[in-house]
């Protein structure tokens, strides 16, 4: 595989990651979101592996494997089981005005592109142009969390945000040092564990996973 081809594949993967982000932004069904999230993880893993291959950095394979294991299999599975157990699979989420959300998402992409422009100039890596996509994915992840109204979907948004981070790590720098990567993965695993517990707590405390029930703690008017 030549460097040029790798760049092209990588760009396509970046585009796909961005696309899945947008998909997550507008998807109403939970299972649909879960599937999209798994796809995003797969693209991320693939991209990491390709970068590792072209740059000859073998620790990136470990990253890719971790991503694959965590983001494509473990997390979606955990979420699937939770959704199944908590009997919320059929819930359809009402979203705030989808076209507006999309427009904001696009604006965020443009903004990310604009922001990373000077950095792109500095970088010599083949993956440099994908930094904008990474940043956009992070921001769209945040946007997903803002627009969602259920605890589970908010978590999916959060995980999408982290995908963006991973993508940034590989695309901007060919991956962080291994210790860090492992630590981050561990943290995400713990986080997944914790939100799993949380869903049960929320469920038992509020009889639903709607965020609107959790708006009691505020300053009195």
């Amino acid at each position: 595989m030549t460097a040029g081809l790798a760049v092209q594949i990588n760009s396509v993967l970046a585009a796909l990651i961005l696309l899945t982000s947008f998909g997550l932004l507008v998807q109403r069904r939970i299972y649909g979101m879960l599937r999209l999230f798994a796809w995003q993880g797969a693209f991320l893993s693939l991209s990491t592996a390709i970068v590792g291959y072209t740059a000859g950095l073998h620790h990136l394979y470990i990253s890719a494997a971790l991503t694959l294991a965590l983001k494509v299999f473990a997390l979606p599975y955990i979420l699937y089981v939770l959704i199944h157990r908590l009997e919320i699979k059929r819930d359809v989420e009402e979203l705030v005005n989808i076209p507006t959300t999309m427009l904001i998402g696009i604006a965020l992409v443009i903004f990310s592109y604009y922001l990373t422009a000077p950095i792109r100039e500095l970088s010599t890596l083949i993956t440099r142009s994908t930094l904008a996509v990474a940043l956009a994915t992070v921001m769209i992840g945040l946007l997903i969390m803002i627009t969602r109204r259920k605890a589970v979907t908010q978590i999916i948004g959060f995980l999408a945000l982290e995908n963006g981070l991973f993508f940034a790590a590989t695309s901007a720098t060919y991956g962080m040092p291994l210790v860090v990567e492992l630590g981050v993965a561990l943290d995400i695993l713990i986080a997944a564990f914790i939100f799993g517990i949380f869903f049960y707590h929320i469920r038992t405390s509020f009889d639903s996973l709607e965020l609107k029930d959790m708006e009691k703690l505020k300053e009195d008017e």
Partner: protein
Amino acid sequence: MLILVLLGINLLAAAVLAVIGEKRYAPEVNILGSAATFVASVFLAADVYYNGRMISGREYFFVDEFNVYLAVLTAFVSMTTAVFSRPYMRHEQERGRLGKVAMRFYHAMFQLFIFAMLMALLTNNVGILWISMELATLSTVLLVSLYRTPSSVEAAWKYFILCGVGIALALFGTVLLYFAAEKVLGEGSKALQWTNLAAVSGSLEPTVLSLAFVFFMVGYGTKVGLVPLHNWLPDAHAEGPTPISAVLSGLLLNIALYALVRCKTLVDGATHGNRAGQIMMAFGLVSLLVSAFSLLRQKDIKRMFSYSSIEHMGIATYAFGLGGSVATFGALLHMLVHSLTKSAIFFTVGHASQMHGTQEISRIRGLIKGNPLVGWGLMLGVAAIIGLPPFGLFTSEFLILTATMKSAPLLAPFFLLGLAIAFAALLRKVMPMVFGAVPDYQHNQRVSHTPVILHMILVLVLGLYLPVFLSQWLHGAVRLLR
């Protein structure tokens, strides 16, 4: 070696307590673990004091003037908190608010949390710092919802999500930092080491670093509790068990600020300007003002003091942003005395709310007559926290205010406004609580005297006299941060 021992104690204690945490003697084990950590930290500090900075553990750990005093502080406050938590948590258990599993979980997580904080302080690696910060968050998230009440679950959820997002953004900042550093220092862990980064900060790429700083600012800033990223903080402090509020307020915020300040020095070195400082000043001032005004409307005693923490973190952030040796010295001192004072306040608040069976300010009355130690402890603690001498917070605020007048006089009125409002608000709420007659629903109980008295004496002494070693460290830290 010492560092590894120091960190190992906590991990060991956490592991042990995970097994025996519900036993009658578990609180004592908890105290023992924390005390051992404190002793180790004192040895570490002595080592640093006599032999200077050190780097160890294959360059994964380092100790300099900046983190050594915070490490000792962290170990100390966690020890006193452990002492305080013994009667407090027992009382909670007797009241039936907590079961055995919860106690086990509490004790183990307490130690893990301390471990995470010490790790964050002592690590030389920006990435590991990030991991430790995340660990600190994750270990306390479930402590906040320990009581399983709907509001505590809600608070914990908000804490988890907001800090999770925040810390994720900090990771993005770390990635950017690595991106810039890798060009100068080459690939691998070396490029994420504070010691190396500080040495080459002048040659790092300024645009990348200023971008990275924004992410650090929003990320760690969330953890520091800066307005408008602070919204998790009052909820989490108010709903968790009081010992956890004490360490969250007294220690975790400090650690986050520590991380932020470390990043700021790098960015300053790279950009040769004070852009980062200005951002921090803005955040600090806004935090100070908003929290001061919010303080006026509080009805829950722990919530009120958590706003006070936001206020003080705002002050410290502002002072670090201001720069200059006087302000930085003030900010460093502020972190120290604020920790001591705020945790002492939370100790008394914990007892006070147990005595009245509520956290509502309007129901807590007549503390001085009911229990002089709790009453006077709260009164003097508040006197200290609102910046009255001869307590240490006055010293730091004195330095920060005078430095403001020197470097940014136009901000002085706002700063003063914030301080004055916070002063008025806290005083107004606290006076009816401590003074007056004892209400009939108040019931006295066993309280732990030592932590409150110890903290207040330290705060008092620090207001009048800084020991030589401390002033050396603070001066050293000031030099580091310049």
